C-alpha cells in the first residue's frame, strides 16, 4: 500500500481517515471524520478543495467485479476549488473545477462532473453520463437547470479554516516517499 502524499499547504486533520494512494494538493482542507479511500486505484486531489466532515471520497471496485480478477487501477482525479459538503458520497472518477456536491448527495462512479456543477442536497446521481458545465441538480426529483455563472470558490472559508483548524486539531504531516506515515 503506498502512502498518502500531502502537499505542503494542505490542512489534513488527524481524525480524518485516508487510506491508499492519495495525493492532496496545497490549500486543500480535509475536515476531521472525512474519509478518502483509494481501494481500486489512486486518488489525486487538486488544490483549494474543501472536504467537510463525514464526506466519503472512495475509489472502489465496481460492485459486480471481484477484487481478485485482473483490473487495471483507474485514477480518480479531482480538480481545484471543489466543495464536498457534510455527509456526501462521491465515487465519480473525474471531477473538474468549482463543483459543489451538497450534503448527503450521492454521486456514482460513472458520472463525470465538468466545471461549475452543483449536485443538490440528498440528490442521488448514478447515471452514466457527463454532466455539462454549470448544471444545477436540485429537488427530490433531481430536476436540472443550467445556471449562468459558476459558483464562487470558497476562498474566504478556506483561509479561515486554514487559520483556525490547526488551533484545535492535530494535523497529518507531509509524508516523504520511503518513510512510514506519522
Amino acid at each position, binding site marked *: 500500500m503506498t502512502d498518502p502524499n500531502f502537499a505542503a499547504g494542505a490542512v489534513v486533520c488527524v481524525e480524518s481517515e485516508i487510506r491508499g494512494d492519495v495525493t492532496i494538493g496545497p490549500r486543500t482542507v480535509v475536515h476531521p471524520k472525512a474519509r478518502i479511500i483509494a481501494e481500486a486505484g489512486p486518488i489525486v486531489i487538486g488544490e483549494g478543495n474543501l472536504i467537510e466532515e463525514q464526506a466519503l471520497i472512495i475509489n472502489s471496485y465496481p460492485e459486480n467485479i471481484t477484487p481478485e480478477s485482473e483490473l487495471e487501477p483507474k485514477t480518480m482525479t479531482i480538480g481545484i476549488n471543489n466543495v464536498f459538503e457534510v455527509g456526501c458520497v462521491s465515487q465519480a472518477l473525474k471531477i473538474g473545477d468549482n463543483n459543489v456536491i451538497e450534503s448527503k448527495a450521492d454521486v456514482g462512479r460513472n458520472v463525470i462532473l465538468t466545471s461549475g456543477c*452543483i449536485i*443538490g442536497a440528498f440528490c442521488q446521481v448514478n447515471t452514466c453520463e457527463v454532466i455539462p458545465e454549470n*448544471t*444545477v441538480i*436540485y*429537488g427530490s426529483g433531481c*430536476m*436540472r*437547470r*443550467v*445556471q*449562468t*455563472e459558476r*459558483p464562487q470558490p470558497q476562498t474566504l472559508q478556506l483561509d479561515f479554516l486554514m487559520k483556525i483548524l490547526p488551533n484545535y486539531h492535530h494535523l497529518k504531516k507531509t509524508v516523504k516517499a520511503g518513510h512510514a506515515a506519522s
Partner: protein
Amino acid sequence: MASLLQPERVIYLVRGEKRIRAPLSQLYFCRYCSELRSLECVSHEVDSHYCPSCLENMPSAEAKLKKNRCANCFDCPCCMHTLSTRATNIPCPLPDDPTKTAMKKAYYLACGFCRWTSRDVGMADKSVASGGWQEPENPHTQRINKLIEYYQQLAHREKQERDRKKLARRRQCMPLAFSQHTIHVVEKYGLGTRLQRQRPGAPISTLAGLSLKEGEDQKEITIEPAQALDEVEPLPEDCYTRPISLPEVTTLRQRLLQPDFQPAGATQLHPRHKHLLMKRSLRCRKCEHNLSKPEFNPTSIKFKIQLVAVSYIPEVRIMSIPNLRYMKESQVLLTLTNPVENITHVTLAACDEGDPDDINSTAKIIVPSKELVLAGKDAAAEYDELAEPQDFQDDPDVVAFRKSNKIGFFIKVIPQREEDADVIVSLKIRHDFRNLAAPIRQNEEGGDNTAEAIWLTHHVELRLGPLAA
C-alpha cells in the same frame, strides 16, 4: 412500534351533515352542542392575512388591493422557494471624478435551493436592498379592468330590477328573505356568498368601487366586443426540425404559476411576489359558537379559543398487537387516556349486528364488560410526593396497567375474513362528560357544586394491520 401510533390507526366517527371518519387529533368538539365536529361540518372564516416569510400582518382590504401578495418578498419562478437578496460590490466611477472608481453595493435576488438568480432573466442589479424590484406589467390589464367594471355594473343593474319587481309584486316585503335570494343569485360577479351569509340583513357593499344611490343615473360603460382575427401568426419554419434544449423550456408548473404570461422560455421567468397565507377561525354551524380562533399576531402559534377534541374526549391508542390469525381469538392491548381533570368512567361496547355505522369492520371483538375508571389528569402529580396513589380495584384480566391518567386494557379480536386487507374492528365508547361551559346551577341545599354529567357515545374504528402469515 411507532407505526402503531400513527393517527390513521384509530378513527372516530362524526355524525354531522355527512358521516366523516377521522382521527381524533383532526377533530373539534363543540362543548355547547356536546358533539364532535370535523373540518367539513364547521364554517371557515378568514381571520387575517400574513406573509409566510416576513411574517407581516395585513388587513383584508389591503390584501385584496395587493392581490393577496406580499410587497417585500419574492418567490423563485423556478422552484417556488423564497428568494433572498444578496449584495455584491461592483466598481463604479465616482460622479465627481470619472477616473477614480469606488465600490458600490449592488443587490440581486438569488434562490438558495435551485441557485436561480435575477441575473438569469436579465434583470439588472438594483442599488437599493428592497423595493427596487418590479413585476412586469400584464399587457391586458386595461382591457380586463374595463370588462370587470362593465360586468359589475350589469350585475348591479340586474339586482336593482329584480328588487323592484319583487317590491311591486308583494306589498308586505320581507327584506331578509329577498335580499338573501338576490345575494345568492345576482352576486355572481362579486366576492362570493360567504361574506353575505354572516350578515343576513346588512346592505350589500361588496361592489366597493361603485357608490350608487337609488334612482341616480349612472354613467354607462360600454365595451367593445372582442374581435376575431382571420390571420394568425404562422409557426416558425424550423418548428419541427429545431432540436429542443430542455433547460430552456419551462415546466408546466412554472408556466402555470404565472397565468398572466405563461412564458414558454426559461429566460422570461420573472419572479413574482409571494402569496399571503391566511389564519382562519372555525365556527360550529349549529350553535354559531367559535371552535377555533387563532391569535392575531402571525408569530404566535397559540389560540384564543381552542376547542379541540383531544382535550375533551378520551383517546384510544393501540399499544401492541399479537399475531392475528383467521378465526383465532387474540388479545390486543389498547390504552385510554383521560384528557380532563376529573375522574371519567368509560364503558365499552361492541357494535350490534345491524349497526348502520359499522361498515368497515372485518373482525369480531369482545370488550370488557365492566366499567373502566380513568383518573383525572393532574399536572402537578409528578412533583407532589405526598399524594397517595388512588386505589382503583383493577381486574388484572381486563386492566393491564395504570399510569396517572392512562389505562391499558385488553380486548379480544377474532378476524372473520381471510383476505389480505387490514383487520378493522369497531367499538362504541361511552363516557361521562362534565360540561363546564354551561352555568352551574346551585342546589337549594347549597351542596352540589359539580356540573351535570352527560353521557356521550362515540363510534371508534381501529385498524389493526394485516393477518399474520
